[in-house]
């Protein structure tokens, strides 16, 4: 049987901040159009993993990365066009980061920076992204107000719209629901189910049940160790291979 080519392939990835090792040689791969969730307690290295994938870790001076990360078979450490590469990855941070720009400009920021300047095309793109992020109806009458004036949940959807604005192939969400209410969370979860038609989604989540609701496969990280990665159903049914996984998903960890 020929294996399906993976969208993202991680092999023996090790990361240090200074002398502190925070990812201990983890290996896994993610299939195209999969929703892949990453669970684990705080400080496990989940955010670090995402920062390696979109190479924003370059901006942490004392970080060192070993091992291989490939997107579509291309080694991310040696991409030729780093800006073009980063646009292939969408990133949504735990706390919404409304850039100090209007709602419209938040979404138009990335497309403009790589040369899209026709007003109609931008208008259409902004509307499409905001609609995809389930925010359009709430903001269509005030696209020129500051993005930071929106409520927390709205701002988080704005950052999702912004991440979609450069039409990424992989969308990374880092504990996106940590600062928003359950209703908005459910709204965004519905959005993600739609988006998986078009892209691969890496969902780092603090809500174990969210992984269960959405993910095809789930990975459990603990203090930089990959404890287990498997079909979500298996991970959550209490019959996972590693007893730590069973304890963590049952909430009796520790």
């Amino acid at each position, binding site marked *: 049987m020929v294996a399906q080519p993976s969208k993202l392939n991680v092999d023996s990835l090790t990361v240090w901040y200074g002398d502190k090792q925070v990812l201990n040689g983890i290996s896994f791969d993610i299939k195209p159009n999969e929703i892949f969730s990453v669970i684990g307690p705080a400080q496990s290295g989940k955010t670090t993993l995402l920062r390696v994938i979109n190479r924003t870790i370059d901006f942490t001076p004392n970080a060192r990365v070993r091992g291989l990360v490939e997107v579509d078979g291309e080694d991310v450490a040696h991409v030729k066009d780093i*800006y073009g590469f980063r646009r292939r990855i969408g*990133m949504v941070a735990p706390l919404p980061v409304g850039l100090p720009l209007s709602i419209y400009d938040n979404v138009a*920021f990335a497309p403009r920076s*790589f040369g899209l300047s026709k007003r109609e095309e931008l208008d259409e793109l902004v509307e499409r992204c905001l609609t995809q992020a389930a925010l359009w109806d709430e903001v269509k009458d005030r696209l020129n107000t500051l993005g930071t004036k929106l409520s927390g949940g709205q701002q988080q959807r704005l950052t999702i719209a*912004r*991440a979609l604005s450069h039409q990424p192939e992989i969308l990374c969400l880092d504990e996106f629901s940590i600062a928003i209410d359950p209703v908005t969370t459910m709204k965004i979860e519905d959005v993600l189910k739609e988006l998986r038609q078009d892209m691969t989604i890496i969902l780092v989540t603090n809500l174990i049940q969210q992984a269960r609701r959405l993910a095809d496969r789930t990975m459990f990280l603990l203090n930089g160790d990959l404890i287990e990665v498997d079909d979500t159903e298996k991970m959550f049914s209490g019959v996972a291979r590693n007893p730590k996984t069973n304890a963590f998903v049952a909430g009796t960890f520790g």
Partner: protein
Amino acid sequence: MWLTMPLLHRPKWKVVGEGLVEWLIRICGVSAVIFVFAIFFFVFWEAKGILFGEDRLDLWKFLTSEEWYPASESNPRYGASALIAGTASVTVLSMLIAVPFGLGAALFISEFCGPRLKEVLKITIELLAAIPSVVWGFIGITIMNQLVMRIFGAPIGLTVLNGAIILALMSVPIIVSIGEDALKAVPDSYREAAIGLGVTRWQMLYRVLLPAAKNGLLAAVLLGVGRAIGETMAVLMCTGHAVNNPFNTTFPFLHPLDSVRTLPATIAAELGETAQGSQHYQVLFVIGLLLFTITFVVNMTADLVVKGIKGK
């Protein structure tokens, strides 16, 4: 029960002592305000004779005439406009030099240099800020004077340009340190979010960082201006001390190689020579009031701008 006893029965000296300390602190706080008003009142008091007396100063003439002959026996004239122009010329030119340098340095320190170099630069700039102004004046009279004469072929080097360069060197540390604070106050998550969108570092700087820090940067510039307007000693020494209006109506509108005299320098140079209470003496206090007003407005504006940042 016994645990609360010491609180209920505190010794009398403690109660009185704390009350005293509280009052002391209160007086310290209030005195700052009182001093400012007292100084303003004093300056005003010394000037009031010539402002409201019978032989009063023609304020219009004071502000528009270039004739500054305060020591003339027969016909003393008090036209401060050349002095105002002198102050303005030195301040404007120094800001044209200091603002780009200062903001550029702040950006470099905050965004581009490594942690080691950053420490070194910050300490150096603090040292620069600690140099007394008379030392700057000395540098102006000796080194700058020579340089201006050699490079521009000017007959004397004590000019607007000289004073402006020295003033720029004095205000750059303020602009850098406050500007750097403003940039540092922009959360890293902004930078990372922008970079994550696949924009270049310059696009991130220009579209995200500068707009986010713009109030703080503006405050840095205004405080630099305030420093430049109020500076006395260095400018007195560097600008040649000639009453002269360096502006004119044809391009380039400002003669940087003219000698000028500024408002603060005039007070510093002439106050010692006048009889207390004389007309000349009082006019110098009017100049003091004028300066007080200008710096007050600049500082207030800077303050409001800074408040604007915090209010957001």
